[in-house]
């Protein structure tokens, strides 16, 4: 029989469920002892309060802040970035394809957005600076459709390479190491 009050240590152990053999003794003592019951109640209230998370949290966008920190030590592998880049190019190329299919000259639309006279001035400047750039400029003048088709072809080649050709070759098309499921 326990004559003395239960110690703070034992009451905490009882509360945490780690009192072991003492558990029944402590319980029966507390049934009779108001002081120990009160001590137990205070500890229970305290542990309840301690389990409440702080009201403040890190602000949204914290992860981006870490990833864009100048000291961030990991170089992002192009394998993970290129798909986004090529998707963008694909969208641009698709738009260009629609323009060409409908027989619309993109220059008419772009001229609304960009001041082409500035481009002409740059071209004149280059023209006077070096006669060597003339043939280069000549190829591109009035050949917007060619440029866009080239871009489109580039995208098609990339997609073919990534999703078709690599799969046909043995031990290719997958990065070395384990294969990874989609994360989020």
């Amino acid at each position, binding site marked *: 029989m326990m004559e003395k009050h239960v110690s*703070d*240590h034992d009451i*905490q*152990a009882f509360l945490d469920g780690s009192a072991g053999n003492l558990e029944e003794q402590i319980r029966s003592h507390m049934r009779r002892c108001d002081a120990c019951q009160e001590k137990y109640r*205070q*500890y229970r*209230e*305290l*542990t309840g*309060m*301690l*389990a*409440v*998370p*702080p*009201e*403040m*949290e*890190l*602000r949204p966008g*914290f*992860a*981006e*802040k*870490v*990833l864009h*920190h100048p*000291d*961030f*030590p*990991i*170089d*992002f*592998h192009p*394998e*993970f*970035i290129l798909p986004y880049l090529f998707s963008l190019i694909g969208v641009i190329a698709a738009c260009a394809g629609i323009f060409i299919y409908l027989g619309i000259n993109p220059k008419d639309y772009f001229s609304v957005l960009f001041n082409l006279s500035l481009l002409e001035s740059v071209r004149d400047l280059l023209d006077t600076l070096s006669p060597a750039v003339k043939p280069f400029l000549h190829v591109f003048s009035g050949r917007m459709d060619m440029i866009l088709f080239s871009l489109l072809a580039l995208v098609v080649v990339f997609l073919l390479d990534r999703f078709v050709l690599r799969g046909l070759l043995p031990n290719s098309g997958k*990065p070395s*190491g*384990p294969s*990874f*499921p989609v*994360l*989020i």
Partner: protein
Amino acid sequence: MINETTLVGRIQKGDPRACRHFVEQYQRLVFHMVSRTVPEKNDWEDICQDVFLKAFQHLDHFRFESRLSTWLARIAYNTCINYVKKKRPLLHDDNPGRPPEPADNTSIRPDHHTEQQDMARRLREEILRLPAPYRTILTLYHLEEMQYHEIAEIMNLPLGTVKNYLYRAREKLKQQLFMKYPEEAL
């Protein structure tokens, strides 16, 4: 949920989504540890950022001998303790006479507080009076629900010491809190 081996592998291969996932998964743990251990709340975000940068830097040294959260918590604990030591060398050992920093909402009149907010504020003040290792143990045990052996590993302390510190911390809090604020006030 993605497993730790896969996550670490993807981070090491330079997958930005995996890096973001790692930060988002553990930022709560790191923030809890920092906010409970470091009193200067203006520095919390910078310290959390520092913890993650160190983690990414040393991820190659992670040997999967413990959980990733335990490993990260150890980095967070060491970072916090170094910060606290640098700021106030005495704080690490004990912090007997130092008054706690004003709580976030001290400018609000007391009669506008809810009872729960008031209790939380008082508890925060009392926790800030405890030594830094006590504060960390309370956080890891009660907020993160970690086991004694995990806490011992994080803080590099014997298991018995962790248990002892936890009991002492709670005993101190109980005495300070319930003596200062009798039952009816709480």
